[in-house]
């Protein structure tokens, strides 16, 4: 498992691709909502930019692969230099799909409370919607200094995932296509997606810290 040339090869590949590096990339932004909650708690705001400007995802949509965005929001309490406290996590997902027969885009928001679906007639409109900011109803508990971290995993769904999603939307509770899918399943899915040649990406960002006090 020791191969110095491998590192050189990877570094060489990285440095050999200047042109495409200029293309627009998906951006994840995590910020704080306005100071309107009791004790100055701030809700997290999550925004994904340039999803459809990124060629990988626009190509995947055009090839009829639904694009799935899995969000994981974690709430952390800072202990000022000591180990921070993980409070809890919230997960949700968004699936973007182009339906060529109806020439429309479908966006499905997968929440624990059930799926919510939107349809858009044009690419511009769905792109505009996807750039909107999610304000997440998940506030920290207690007082102290808090911050949020958000991990975004973007995948192009395989045929099996599409089938799972269909079942989930059809209300089959034992077919978890939502964020509740187990991690092993997700890892296997990611590997399968890689082998199948479908894109896969992961981003992580955190919010500025904020203080909750009486």
């Amino acid at each position, binding site marked *: *498992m*020791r191969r*110095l040339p*491998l*590192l050189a090869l990877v570094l060489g590949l*990285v440095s050999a*691709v200047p042109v*495409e*590096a200029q*293309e627009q*990339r998906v951006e994840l932004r995590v910020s704080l909502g306005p100071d309107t909650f009791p004790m100055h708690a701030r809700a997290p705001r999550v925004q994904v930019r340039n999803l459809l400007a990124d060629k990988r995802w626009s190509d995947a949509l055009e090839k009829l692969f639904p694009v799935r965005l899995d969000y*994981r929001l974690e709430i952390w309490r*800072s202990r000022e*230099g000591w*180990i*921070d*406290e993980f409070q809890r996590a*919230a997960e*949700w997902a968004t699936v973007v799909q182009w339906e060529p027969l*109806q020439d*429309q885009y479908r966006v499905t*928001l997968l*929440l*624990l409370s*059930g799926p919510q*679906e*939107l*349809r858009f*007639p*044009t690419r511009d*409109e769905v792109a505009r*919607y996807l750039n*909107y*900011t999610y*304000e*997440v*109803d998940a506030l920290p508990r207690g007082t102290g200094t808090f*911050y949020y*971290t958000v*991990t975004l995993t973007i995948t192009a769904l395989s045929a099996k995932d599409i089938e799972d999603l269909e079942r989930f*939307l*059809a*209300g089959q*509770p*034992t077919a978890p296509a939502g*964020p509740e899918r187990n*991690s092993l*399943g997700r890892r*296997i899915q990611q*590997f*399968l*997606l*890689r*082998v199948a040649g479908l*894109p*896969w*990406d*992961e981003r992580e960002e*955190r919010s500025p*810290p904020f203080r909750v006090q009486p």
Partner: protein
Amino acid sequence: MKRGSGGAREPGSRGRRPVFVALALLCAGAGPAAAMQDSVVRISPEKRAPDSTGLNVLPAAIVQELLRSYNDSGTTRIVGGFRLPAGSRLTGPLGVFRGSLRVSGEVIGRITVINGDLIIDSGAHVSGEMLVVGGQILIREGARVEGRQRFYPVQARLTRNGAGLLVIPPPAQTLGDLASVRAPITTGHFRTDLGVETGRTYNRIEGLPIVFGPSITREGLRDVEARLDLRGIVWTAPDKTDRRSEFGYSGRVEFRFGVERRLSVSGNAYRMIAPIEEQPLSRSEVGWAGFVLQRDYRDFYQAQGAAGHMSYNLGSGLTIGTSIRYDAERSVPAGDPISLFRNTVWRPNPLVDDGHYITWRVGLDLDTRNEPASPTSGWLVHTYWEQTRSNDAAPVSLPSEVRNPIAPGRYASARIMFDARRYARINPSVRASIRVVGAGWISGDPLPVQRRLSLGGPDILPGYSFRSFNCVPPSLVDPSQPALCDRMLATQLELRTRTHIGLPLSTSDPYIGALQRLLAIREPDLVIFGDLGKSWITGEGPGRVPNNRLPVLREWASDVGFGVDLGGIGFYLAQPLTDSRPLLFSVRLQRRF
């Protein structure tokens, strides 16, 4: 985009139109679209559906009524959202599956909406029975409605078959393992999964193991679940001796009791190739190293016998369990399976102490990690105590520095193992992980060869080469580099921070894209680590450490290093701090720990 910016769009229509409404299904205006005007969508990911506890089962009679109604040859079937425009009239039964029906015109006939809403606009007219499942009925002021109305919020577990008719789907499959093929068959309460898959490794004993067979699960009982797994194992590496059997097998029956299935009791019979140590690399990494570089980082023996297990999940991630097994353990020689880049001679597989062993184990596991794949908080603890006895063991002859002579036919020893990992976030940008791992003899006779240990290699001490500390005395020349230590103790500390250096590259180059996908490249973590470990022979005598003592700190091996973790692959450089050894480079295909 503004809500209500144009006319409705009907499914199935083609071509671009200038304006359309994007909205298809929203819950009483409280969903995303309500907040879209200010470009902020408010969501509640922690909120569960209010009907998810008491009403989560749709009456069987309703399910049958849905099937009859939708599949009726006289029914107009629609999949997806549909709007009947004002001025339009539809006569006869209408069924909508997985979408909302919005009536602005007139419907004369029965309406069945499955997993969607029925919205009747002002000025619309509906005359007929209305059944909505997985949604609600919204009647706007000014609508005229005649007929019985029923709705059930819980969604129907139905799917479409190839003919477009609704059927009750078979139980959902989970995603299978890599390189596996599964075929589910459901008969009444019994679900059978027929599967063929690889053993997810590659080594010099088995080659690529192919595993096949059925799993049969009895479902639907409230307090018990039963499962039977039957497996045949084909070893693709030929054995030129008669030491290894021709094929392996495993038969396992498991019962899980309680509503939450916390108590598990199982028994199995098996013949398989078992690893001697669970390190220095994971099973899949060992497989790739063997297949690509002809380096097998593990040793193996053949185990044939039967076992019983019992475990109880105490909640909060804590599980206790016990097992007892009786098996014949015997040495197996290395075969000669192919390797991708090197095809010389494989490292020999060391001999073990052949014999029949009774092994009793008591274990405890704790898992409170926030995210198993990439944890930033919580504990992961795996520990057990194990006692082994044998009445017919044939010990391998080892130098007295390693093990005092043992009379054949008598073995009774005990050992423990613990692996505790703590994940934490020190501050918003830095994550820390610490691991303490140890194992070894605690009582009785010296350990059999197949229970012994070593250190050195990419996992615990990456600054030191494979089996650098295996307790083989200079008097023993053995090309198999066996692990002969009685005890091992090590600790690892790791700090990591996420970098934003533009990976994976957004590229249209298919080769670079494929390489990135294959390696699961993501934003890299910069990793800084340090490791400290020692393995030793315990007991009285030269070169040994007394049973009740730990080696002095100056005898421990340590290293420091750094690397980048790119997701599916990581590159690390480690510098040993003892013995003036050179810098070592290692590649991992998963997180270090």
